[in-house]
């Protein structure tokens, strides 16, 4: 039976808790309620209050407590009920967790995970994609899976990692995406992108929910005789430069697609790396497609205008291939 993206994450955490008694989960409404999106459903019954810790409504304390426990040798998995709320814990993430190893050699083996992303008419505070704030913070690892397979394999790698990992789950994928998963234990390495679809005429570099926008566009482009290669980054920090550059060298045309807003988004960083290291392979400008530079609006027509979609990608892709 196919496993959904949300179930894959739940299974990944669950299996790590079975495997390693130092792994525990901490967050708001994660115990009795099972989490706002049910990622921790059933864990309280299986693992008890000691390892499934419902906290006061205080994101800074949640992340800080995870850091403190991590310093003492545990492997906490902290849930942000919505990734938007990680801004409340910003100091703890960027100043404490990210800098401990570099400053004084202390590993902080924590995972901070939560749902991100728009498309659900949830408005400015329950729809954001905050990854770029943290991609700009040396010492962190930032992961954003798009498939159920990767979500499970990456959450396991994140929990086993000895550095702080931020794990962004697109809430629009939770129950929409499903696939058959291996029965045996497996991990997906942090720091490796995947060539999700091979192609020759242009490359779309993307991650998270935008993978499916890229795929929809690629199907149409295929009917128009254009072959699209899709790179699913999976990890945003550290970036897998080699996979990106290899694809650009092959297709010579590239679209950088993300749901995060445009200015200061990770697309700008990737564009710079491509122009620095593969400029002579390019046949056309590097194109960014991202959400508009506004807060995430609530009303459906506004949110639709805000988000990238296949039509917007097709328009840019056709232009790029004519260039």
């Amino acid at each position, binding site marked *: 039976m196919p496993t959904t993206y949300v179930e894959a994450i739940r299974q990944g955490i669950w299996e790590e808790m079975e495997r390693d008694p130092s792994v525990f989960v901490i967050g708001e409404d994660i115990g009795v309620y099972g989490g706002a999106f049910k990622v921790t459903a059933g864990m309280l019954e299986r693992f008890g209050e000691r390892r499934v810790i419902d906290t006061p409504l205080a994101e800074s304390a949640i992340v800080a407590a995870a850091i*403190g426990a991590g310093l003492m040798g545990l492997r906490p998995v902290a849930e942000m009920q919505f990734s938007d709320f990680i801004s409340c814990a910003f100091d703890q993430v960027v100043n404490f967790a990210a800098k401990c190893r570099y400053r004084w050699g202390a590993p902080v083996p924590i995972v901070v995970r939560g749902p991100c992303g728009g498309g659900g008419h949830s408005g400015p505070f329950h729809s954001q994609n905050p990854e770029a704030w943290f991609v700009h913070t040396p010492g962190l*690892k930032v992961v954003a899976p798009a498939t159920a397979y990767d979500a499970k394999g990456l959450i396991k790698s994140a929990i086993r990692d000895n550095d702080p990992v931020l794990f962004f789950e697109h809430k629009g994928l939770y129950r929409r995406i499903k696939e058959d998963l291996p029965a045996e234990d497996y991990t997906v390495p942090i720091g490796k992108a995947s060539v999700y679809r091979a192609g020759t005429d242009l490359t779309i570099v993307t991650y998270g929910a935008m993978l499916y926008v890229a795929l929809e566009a690629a199907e149409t482009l295929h009917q128009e005789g254009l072959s699209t290669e899709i790179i699913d980054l999976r990890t945003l920090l550290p970036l897998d430069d080699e996979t990106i550059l290899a694809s650009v060298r092959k297709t010579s045309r590239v679209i950088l697609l993300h749901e995060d807003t445009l200015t200061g988004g990770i697309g700008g960083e990737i564009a710079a790396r491509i122009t620095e290291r593969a400029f002579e392979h390019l046949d056309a400008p590097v194109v960014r497609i991202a959400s508009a530079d506004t807060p995430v609006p609530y009303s459906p027509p506004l949110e639709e205008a805000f988000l990238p979609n296949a039509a917007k990608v097709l328009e840019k892709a056709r232009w790029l291939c004519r260039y």
Partner: protein
Amino acid sequence: MAAVEPLDLARASRALADEPDPNAELARQFLYYMSLMREVEDRIERKLYRQGKIVGGVYSGRGQEAISVGAGLVAEADDVVFPCHRDMGLFFIRGVHPRQVFAQYMGRIGGLTRGKDGNMHMGDLRLKIVAIISSIGASVPVAAGAALALKYQGTRNVAFVFFGDGATSRGDWHEGVNLAAVQRLPLVLICNNNQYAYSTPLDKQMACANVADRGPAYGIPAEIVDGNDVFAVYEAARRATQHARAGLGPYLVECKTFRMSGHAAHDPGDYVPKHLWEEWAQKDPIRRLERGMVERGWASQADVDQTHARIRQEVDEAVQWAENSPYPDPSELLDNLYEPPSGAGGAR
């Protein structure tokens, strides 16, 4: 760390008792660590900083030595401590050598951070000392997490977190205290209320009279002690620690003291009324301890002088060692940002 006997005030007052008085031994430890802290910080602030040998800022705990030393000697080796920037005594008690501290301030590889960070921003997990971040108060919820781990692991250990009055204005101070209270975590909260946060006096910091007033709001015990009386700090820290070790949750100790310096070496503290400097100079915790020791017959003035002479010699040697410690090589810039790949993904 030496084990210390319980304090017995009745016995302490028997100045001429024939048997060795455990309080006399405790007082000697207090005197050594408090004087060492004073000497090291004076050397840093009043000599090395002015000579341009300290590459960054200097924040001292002058006048507050009784707090980190009194509470620090209560902590056991497997307890974990979170010092703030006026708690150098804690480092020495737990086994950091003064030469490492000088090297730290000078940005040399002999410092605890090998030049990656400066001044009191240092720690060593082997010694169960967690390094602060500069936004003081942020350590409190992290210490709550460490206490959570100590409880989770089934130990009887506790976490000690140190902070000033200003830190208690910060949201994450409150988040940390609340989380620790709700979860009944073994956390000892030690406030050095030194009346000023940089230039901001207490009455612009909070509208309640005492930091300890905040304890009951979180359902935890809190007490106020004379922070310049090292025995009083020690006793209060012991009560707090017994409470935390017994599984009864966090305990707040507010140590009333005074910052006998500006905020940092660059700050003369002109905003402090002159009479406060004079009043608090009379309450110097080291002079006070020395007087008590001599009065009780625990030490002669010659013993006290000898302690200071020994410390000065230790410090001379430590400074020399630190000055001979090299600066880090620029090739170390990228080191230790992440775990090296060979260990990635593996169990610890």
